[in-house]
């Protein structure tokens, strides 16, 4: 399964459907919603947490949460 956790630094993706039960509402309110774009800005040392740009907002989440959110990676032309 390709999720936000599979992104490499600088890569972008489009968020797909995910289960609301495992993802906090707060994250949705910050713009993490199906159809929106997500980019990995940077990872912290030890590859966790992840610093993301979701729908224009900069935020950090842990890898385990990121691994719950399916995405489709945008291939660079």
């Amino acid at each position: 399964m390709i999720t936000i956790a599979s992104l490499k630094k600088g890569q972008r993706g489009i968020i797909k459907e995910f289960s609301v039960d495992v993802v906090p509402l707060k994250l949705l309110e910050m713009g993490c919603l199906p159809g929106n774009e997500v980019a990995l800005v940077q990872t912290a040392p030890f590859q966790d947490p992840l610093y993301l740009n979701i729908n224009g907002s900069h935020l950090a989440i842990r890898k385990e949460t990121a691994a719950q959110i399916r995405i489709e990676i945008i291939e660079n032309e």
Partner: protein
Amino acid sequence: MAKQFNVALIGNPNTGKTSVFNQLTGLNQQVGNYPGITVEKKQGVCKLARGVKAHILDLPGTYSLNASSLDENVVIELLLNKNDKDFPEVAVVITDVENLKRNLLLFTQIKDLGIPTILAVNMADRMKRKAISLDIELLEERLETKIALISSRKNEGFDYLKELITNYKTLSVKPCLNASVIAPEYFDRLRKAFPNQDLYKLWLVITQDVNFGKLDRQEMSSVASFKTESISNLKRLQQKETIARYQFINGVLKETLTIDTANAKDLRSRLDRVLMHKVWGYVIFIAILMLIFQAIFDWSSYPMDLIDSTFASFGEWTKNNMPAGDFTNLIAEGIIPGLGGIVIFIPQIAFLFLFISILEESGYMSRVVFLMDRVMRRFGLSGKSVVPLIAGTACAIPAIMATRNIENWKERLITILVTPFTTCSARLPVYLIIIALVIPDQRVLGIFSLQALTLMFLYLLGFGAAIFSAYLLDKVLKIKSKTFFVVEMPNYKLPLFKNVAITVIEKTKSFVVGAGKIILAISIILWVLASYGPGNFNKASEIVQKQEIANNLTQVELDQKIASFKLENSYIGHIGKAIEPAVRPLGYDWKIGIALVSSFAAREVFVGTLATIYSVGSDEEETIKNRMAAEINPANGKPLFNFASGVSLLLFYAFAMQCMSTLAIVKRETNSWKWPMWQLFVMSAIAYVVALGAYQFLK
């Protein structure tokens, strides 16, 4: 005076809401608490045109009207309760022009409540540099509102904002989108069950239970015919609602907002690269911590010495210039030394809050959270625990309040439980004075002062104890809670002097007033207990004269003997003697025992207590330190504060849970007496054992 109307400032965190509040009210503001909870309530008065005044309430920052914390809940409870005396006639939603998309989510929710709402777009001064342009007219039309472009940094746009506030009655109260489309059938049933209620309000009341569960649902349950949905279905609906709102916002902004992304290469990425570097990031963080400690230990020692000696001479002056008697003695021997014990903290507290507020205002604190999360998680904590642990070096009370944004309950509880181990500023005077007495003023390797190293060791010990006990608690506590962690990474900002200054003044003031009341009360009680006594106390001079008749003492020596006899036979002397068996194995006498016991109210009382006990009956002008150095242990004729007893005291204070206010806060934040009692007994038991071991070993 005409009735002021209420204005509520609402907005996401990091939108500069507090700066706007400061601009609107100037220094004309007061900070208090919401009744019964420790959420800060900031309110002030803003002068509008033609002598009209508005009462401005700065509500806690929130990302939406779906509360996930106590702070956020305050916002919802107020906005849903028309009868609240603070219920706003008009709401001003503050947004950051660079985060408009996310900030507008909350705006659309407020609009749906039917409250007249103004949209204030803050940080407008950045638009040019970031190549952002906004079609205000169209945006006003789409959002059914009036918009003020403001910049609290440059103080621009506030006249227009005030004008909009003055004319709030002309604002539209139409919602800008219809939330009921997410589940038409469900909302239809709602409407039928409660025909007189605002639909969106009903929806909020129902869903708050999902997230928080504090709102009163009496009205809802009174209508038996209405069947609500399961929690996970409601959550799904909330998600749908959020999606619907974002769809609307994305559509509106597509028409009205343009950002020239070519210009978007900015400060953020450049600073992030350095500040969050896997090596430099930590180096910089440690350097900043060292700077903070340097300020607290070193820079603040100058004003502190000054305060100490000023209070000593002030007490003496009072004694010489007021009519002799009990009242003068109470002031000179009880109140003034007691007060001195609080005022002496001001420089340190101010420095600490200065640094913390600069770190938070600049956006750096979020980076620290990000950097430290993985490390802290190993100990059962969260990256967000770093902020409380740092703030704990000032005072555990604001630190424990700062744990509120830790979403995971287990991580939050552990943070609350271990934060009191960090060396708070109340321990500092105890440390400083004892270190000065028992650690030689020497240098190691010619550079490092031995005393400073000892102090640093005590800080590390505090952090070490916090981290280690967190690790144990993580293993022991069986609490299941969903882990989630969302941190906004705000833009870097140059801290505004005005904001920092107001924070420092407010926090210092509330610390001094809060601690001051306790210390003042205790020093008065102590003075009374030390100045009166039963039986032999009142015949002190006769008894001593009789005892010493053969020794041919001078008048001065005799007076001293009488004074110490009096103290030993005063009420406090009797209490102290009763405690003595428990503290003697730690190397303390009964006076230290009294100071130790009174320290359970607040640690900083220690110095004040000894100052009060030692100054009763003494006429000389002396600093607290010299008085302590002069104390002799009657058992062996050596100084009472020697290396062994000093180390034992230092360790006792490092571990013991001696702060009533912290216990009270922990009770409020964990909603049970179980955890504060756990802290009180476990921490103090550790302290006793460690101090006992140290004294017996070093003696």
